[in-house]
Structure formats: C-alpha cells, structure tokens
C-alpha cells in the first residue's frame, strides 16, 4: 500500500463522503464552533447530556477530509457514553495521534485508521479539531452544571 493510500484509507474517505451524525441539535447542552486558524477547517459541535451520558451529539462543519472524517468517527464513538468515558477516549485518541501509544482497535474502532495521519505532522491538528472541540464543550457543560 502506498503512503497515500495508508493516509487516505477507505474508511476515512467513507466518513468524509457520508458523515455520520451530521446536523444540528436544538435544544442542546453544549454548542460550540471551533476552527483551525491556520488552515480554515471548521467544526460546530452540538451535544445533549442526560444523567451524565452523552445521549446526543451532532456536528456541522467544512474542511479537509481528515478533520471532517475524524469528527464524524468521533460522534459515532462517543454517542451514548458517559462524560468521563468520552474524555477518556479523547485523551486516548490524542495520545495515539501524538505517537505516545499504539492504536487499540478494541477501544478506538474505525478511529485507528487515522493513525496514518501521524506521518504528516501538519495534518495532525486537522484530526484533533473535533476532539478538542468536544473536550471544550464537555468542560463548558461541567462548569455550567457546577455553577
């Protein structure tokens, strides 16, 4: 497999072409828009939390295949899990992208396909955009609950 096919795995292109959980949620418990100022990728993430579970998640956005596919896969993975589990997954994914741990397909599923992005350092931030937005949204939600 060429380096290129390693990066643009079919599952990534599939999520890019047919993003899962695309759209808005109204009402929602968190709703925030983030972008990569350097490259212009954009993600707008909506989340609904019930009893500490992330029961609803959806996103809108535009940008490169890596940013949009990573966010699409993320929504599939974190839908229905607890806030703590979602944060745990985000940390695990970030560690994988930063090359600190090898991918665990049991825990990450399709997301393991994004490991190829590691070889393209300038693109790692594309893969992390949705996840950083999620972590920020969860943090804002928790602060709102706490106050």
């Amino acid at each position: 497999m060429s380096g290129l096919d390693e990066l643009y795995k079919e599952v990534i292109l599939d999520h890019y072409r047919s993003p899962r959980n695309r759209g808005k949620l109204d009402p929602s418990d968190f709703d925030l828009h983030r972008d990569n100022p350097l490259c212009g990728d954009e993600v707008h993430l909506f989340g609904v939390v019930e009893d500490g579970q992330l029961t609803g998640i959806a996103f809108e956005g535009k940008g490169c295949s890596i940013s949009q596919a990573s966010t699409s896969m993320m929504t599939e993975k974190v839908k229905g899990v607890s806030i703590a589990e979602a944060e745990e997954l985000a940390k695990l994914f970030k560690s994988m992208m930063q090359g600190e741990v090898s991918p665990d397909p049991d825990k990450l599923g399709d997301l393991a396909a994004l490991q190829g992005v590691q070889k393209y350092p300038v693109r790692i931030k594309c893969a992390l955009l949705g996840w950083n937005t999620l972590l920020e949204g969860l943090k804002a939600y928790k602060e709102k609950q706490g106050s």
Partner: protein
Amino acid sequence: MDAREVRNDFPVLDQMVNGHPLTYLDNAATSQKPNQVIDELSRFFREDNANVHRSVHTLGERATVLYEGARAKVAELIGAPGPRGLIFTKSATESLNLIAYAWARHRLTEGDEIVTTAMEHHSNIVSWQLAAQDTGATIRAIPVNDGKTLDLEAFRAMLSPRTRIVTVAHVSNVLGTINPVAEIAAMAHEVGALVVCDGAQAVPHMPVDISALDCDFYVGTGHKMCAPTGIGFVWGRESILEEMDPFHGGGEMINDVWIDHSTYNEIPYKFEAGTPPFAEAVALGAAIDYLNGIGIKAIRDHEVELTKYGLQRLSEVPGLTIYGPTEAEEKGGVIAFNLGDVHAHDVGTILDTQGVAIRAGHHCAKPLMRTLGVPATARASFYLYNTHEEVDRLVEALGEVTRLFGVGR
C-alpha cells in the same frame, strides 16, 4: 532566458522529495535562493562583517558602503527618485505596520476612513485595524465583485474628504490580479488621501515603476525575490517621511539624546532604530544584481508563458476550478484553484507525496476566501526557475487526487 539553465543556480531545487524530483511551486510564499546570494551572504560574514554607520574602522566602512549600496539598488529597482525615501525593515508586514503606526496613528481622527480592498493579505488589513482602533477611524474595503478584479465604481462611491488613506496590493497573492494602482492613486489623490501600495508579489516578478504608479508609499520584501528572510523595505515620499514621527526608538534613529528628550536623525535613518539586518540587506543587493543580470522583463515574460501554459493545462483537468483572471497577461504567476470539492489541504498533502510543493489554505486572505465562498484554495505560483515540465508534473500529480477522491467520475 532558459529556465533549465537558471535552475543550476539554485542548489535546493536539485533534490528528490518523497521519491520524486522536487517541483517547487510555492514561490508566492517564499522564493528559493541562488548560489550568487548564498555565496555573497557567506562572503560578507567571512570578509566584511561589522556594524554599519557607527564604526570608524575599515570593515565598518565596507559594511556601510555595501548596506547603502543595497538601498540604492532597491530604490533604482522600483523606480524611486532616490535612496533617501527608502527605509529598510524586516518584512513587507513590518513596512505596512510602520506606515500604520508612524503615519496613521498620529494623523487619523474619529470618522476618518481607511480604504483597503477585499483581496488584501492580512498584513494590509490588520495593521490598519490596529491604527483604526487607536484613532476611531473606520475601515472600508473595495469589493471584488467578479472574483477577479476590484470594483472601481464602488471605490469611487466610497471616496470622500474623510478618506485619508487608500491601501492596495499591487498584485494579489491569491488571484494574481494586477491592480490598476495608478488609476486608484489618481482617484484617491482627488480627495486628498494618501496611497499605499503593497508590492510584495510584484517587485520579484515584473518591472515596477513607482513614479508611474504615483503612490505615496510602496512596500516590498526580500525573501520573495531570491534574498534571505528578515529584510524588507518601504519607500515613502520624502516630504511625507520628513513630517512623520519615528516608528521605533533606539540607536541610529537619533541625532542627539538627553534624558528627557531627543532629536531625530534625518530620513531614512529616523526609521531604522537599532542594528538593522545589514547582512540580509547586502544579500538583497546581490539578489537584485542577480535578477537584473537575467532581466526582470525576461522573468516576467517567462512567467507569463508558464502561467498561460498552467492555465491551459489546469483547465483540462475535470472538476477543477480556477480563481482569478484567466488571461496570463493580466496577472502575476499565481494560479489558485480547487479540485472538485476536495479540500485544498488534501490536495496539498497528495501533491507533496508526488514531490510537488504548492500552498494550500486561506493564504492569509480570509476576507477574500469569504468573497470566493470557499474555506481554502490550492495555489501554484511560479518563478524564474520553473519549467513547463513542472507544470506537467503538477497536472499529473493532480491525477492522484482524482483517483483517491473520485473527482469528475
């Protein structure tokens, strides 16, 4: 000129990238450097290095002569009446900030208007925003209605006695549009506004004559024209520079200093506080000698040929959209494009695996991206060492994008 021969002067071009010969088409971001410039920079440090203007010794004198010689070369290159109005800075960005700070902040008041354009680089927008925030002035932008050129009718309608400064790119770094600076300057001068022209994408690529443009300030940068980074310039009308306050305070820009006040040096030194990037300036002088040796007009003709060929080859690629003027004579050697709905970053990464270096992103021109209705574009930009064969390699590499993303199928 023969681009294949010119390439021998640029050692960086002779390498493989990801298993393919390097095809460097990111010249609007920065140019590569010829041996003549690399060697002069090295020679200067080996033989002549000393601080300029303040040493009585021989090396100091040699360095000063070379530094002032470079100033004269830049002035001559852009058709300035003389070197006195030519100030060295670290970049075109710093040059624009110098004007915004040292002229605009002291002269604008609430309700005054700064006119920029919708196709500017961020440096020619944000510098003015900072001045506007401090003075209460407002910023307006000449629109780009057809995705190619400035709307001069709209410009005429926005001019008023409150228009104090009009600032425009000579050549757009995305669209490649060569703007009608002389016409804009004449309209701006009718209402008493000053005219700033950003020549960062013009001076390296085409003959420039600022006396014909009739602008009041003209800025440029060295690293896009074969010189090192860290050296730029601003030319200003001497009568305006004389009236202006300094930009930075420090050594070299003073005449005399007491604890509570100072008197300032004459222009251009009033604007060159501290040790300037003199080695880089000397290397810029070498770069100008190099470009003049080949001929700026010959470089322009070569780029027009290459752009014509690039526009033709790219227009044959199914699903490809080109932004900006489509007549090579009407633009600089820059082609911005998107392939289908594939994001420019994906295009950039895929081309890189084929050894083809282009820029992908918003090109520091987000207002223009909004006008075009795209988050980003890919951009191929040419210089004197690029060849028709490299345009072919670009088109061939785009085939990989089509294969992976299924554009045009």
